[in-house]
């Protein structure tokens, strides 16, 4: 979808939708928000709605980074310790590898 053809209010509404949507445990919406609206928020010349769009983009970026940190930590811990956790590890797994603990 080409943002150039949209009026500024619609751009703001779209950015806001993606920002609020990301709170429903959907960090990729925040990533999309950042990538898509980055040019609009920081590169384009100033217009009235740009300040709000800039806030949304910044907050989406922060939220996404937070998710990345949490998921990376959990995945590292799980991959490392799943074998030692025995039964608990097996119940948390969807697919259990064959032939290795």
């Amino acid at each position, binding site marked *: 979808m080409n943002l150039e053809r949209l009026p500024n209010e619609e751009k703001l509404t779209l950015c806001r939708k993606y920002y609020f949507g990301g709170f429903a445990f959907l960090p990729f919406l925040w990533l999309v928000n950042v990538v898509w609206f980055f040019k609009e928020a920081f590169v384009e010349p100033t217009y009235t709605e740009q300040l709000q769009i800039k806030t949304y983009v910044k907050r989406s970026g922060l939220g996404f980074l937070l998710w990345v940190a949490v998921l990376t930590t959990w995945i590292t811990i799980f991959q490392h310790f799943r074998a030692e956790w025995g039964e608990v590890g*097996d119940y948390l797994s969807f697919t*259990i590898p064959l*032939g290795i603990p």
Partner: protein
Amino acid sequence: MFAEFAGKILEYFVERYRVHFVLDVSCNSVAQKIYVELNNTVPCVRLLNATHQIGCQSSISGDTGVIHVLESEADLEWPLSKGPNPPYMVLLESSLFTKSIMMKMKNASSRVAGVVVVQKTSPPEFSPHTTCPNENTGVYTETYDHNLAHCNTTVWNPRGNGLSYEEFDSPVFSLKEDNETEVIKQCYFDHNRVVNGSGLQYPLCAMQLFSHMHAVTDTATCMRRSSMDFSTSPVMVCDPLGGYNVCAFIRPYNSTAFGHKENESVVIAAARLDSRAFFLEDSTGAEGSVSGFVTLLAAAQALREATQEAPPTRNILFAFFHGEVFDYIGSSRMVYDMKNNMFVIDLDNVHSILEIGQVAVRSGTNLFLHSDPVSRRNNTVHDEVTNLVKNLQSSTAGLNFSLVETDFSQPLPPSSFQRLLRARAIPGIVLADHQTDINNRYYESFYDNAAHLNLTYPSNLSPEEQLEFVTDTAKSLTEVATAVARALFKQAGGNNSQVNKINADPKTVTQMLYGFLVRSNNSWFQAVMAPELKDILQPNPPQYYVGVAKSSHQANALTYLVQYLLANLTGTATNLTQSQCKKPDELPNESTYLYSYLWVQGVVPPNSTQRESFCVRTAVRLVKAVSPAFDLGDYISKEYSTWTKSQWKFIKARIFLVASRDLEMLTLGVGVAVLFTSLLVTYFVRTKADVLFSSVREPNNAAY
């Protein structure tokens, strides 16, 4: 005209190569040009119990190693440290298959990708089993008698090196000495031989072994993973070991009435069916199990007439237990069933037990009677045991051997009787050819075969003549069977005057030994089997490994053979037709509650090609023998056997020539370089497209 000419050339080539194309299309597969598949391999697989995993595991994409034929133990330095092309696949002859060599290779698993054992001559002694078999599931625990636990007084299998119970993380396969082994050796001599001093030249001959096992850690883990059904297709990773026990009463009971039988007293005559080896599918159990159960089968036949003419006061149960090697699966199941009213009698009905252990390899002329010292401290039990010993010793009158009691303080050898003792102090005796430790030099190994029992036939006999030839081993086992039968008759309260008429038949014994140790596909076995089961008879001896408990009512070949033989030797032939044999309840005098009716093939009479099949009425039944631990869901049980076998997808082995690592890296590098060059060229051509291609268009433009 040019087209015509081209067409003619095309036709010519097509004609010439069409024939070749049709013939070669199946053999031209690139994979077949590279790999030579090895078909007759026996792998070492993974078994698990409550605490350990034993056996071998390969990686999921197979383990590849450069073949090295080991010549002596000192030659191990080459694969372990000196050789320049690790990892190696070590090829051993069976005489080098020892614990020290295997443990050295296990410790160097980064340089040894796997081991292949070629079966050749037997070493003087070899037992991969533990020194104290089934030490935790027998009766001698710390609480029963502290001094007798863990083989403190007598080590039953002193030659045992425990190799079968080690864990290897590289594949170990076994090959027979045949054409495939010759191919491997030829490949080795052509490519891998070290020329004095100079290093090896690539390409080298390599072998790849696939035996990836699905189960890990222990039985509880693998049973848990098998039963989790999150995903769409739950994967079974392991199966419990088990099979069927073969049981026959001389006076059968109603098979649907379980529990205690009033005023019934039963003497149990027991023997073990199964055996194992390091390579499970290669189990022969000549002295370990065959000697015992063949003697008991012959005794059952000897008792048939006497018990039918003058039935003794007590009943006799012939019990052939399966799965005894793996912590007494069969006997623990029977005791469990008896205690929980799931068997036709219970422990109160059991009067005494006589078990036939290993009886074929004597070190003198005597056989020995083993009893349990702890239960004999009780006077009643002691008196009963003494009575049983007296009955046994008097039964050898007129025979060429005598029975001697072992030292009073010596415990029982590993036997099914121990599981009955664990439940109740029952008087009993185990008959064996060894006084202290066992005489079997090849206990639970693949050398415990016909040659170990000195089963030799004169060379000019055909297979049918060999079947009928009475060997010395058969004669000595016949005498033991006669003594056992007479003792059982007396123990069951039979009339003493009839005893001397009870004699085992040497012809039956020698035919059984032939069928169980040389060829199972012989005329006698064919005659006693059912028509639908005749495919289990092979030109080799049957497998003695207990195998996996199948959910369908299918037993393995050994169980069926013993069932049908016992039916033939103790049952009666009836003149029911085949359809009547399937539904005998419709007839007035027949009852499937008491008997089972089996339709067997029968013999081929001379001058005829049709078999005279008939219906046998017999009291023989197959009783499920799976460890109670799996019914109770207690996979960490210390009480019952928890052995399971891992599942796998495929197991195969192949050899091929392998190139050096440098050549592989060079090929990869050249490929990557070609890729980048082509990308560059394409980019260049694209950006300069107008310059490169416009010169062709100019003359056309000029025409305008």
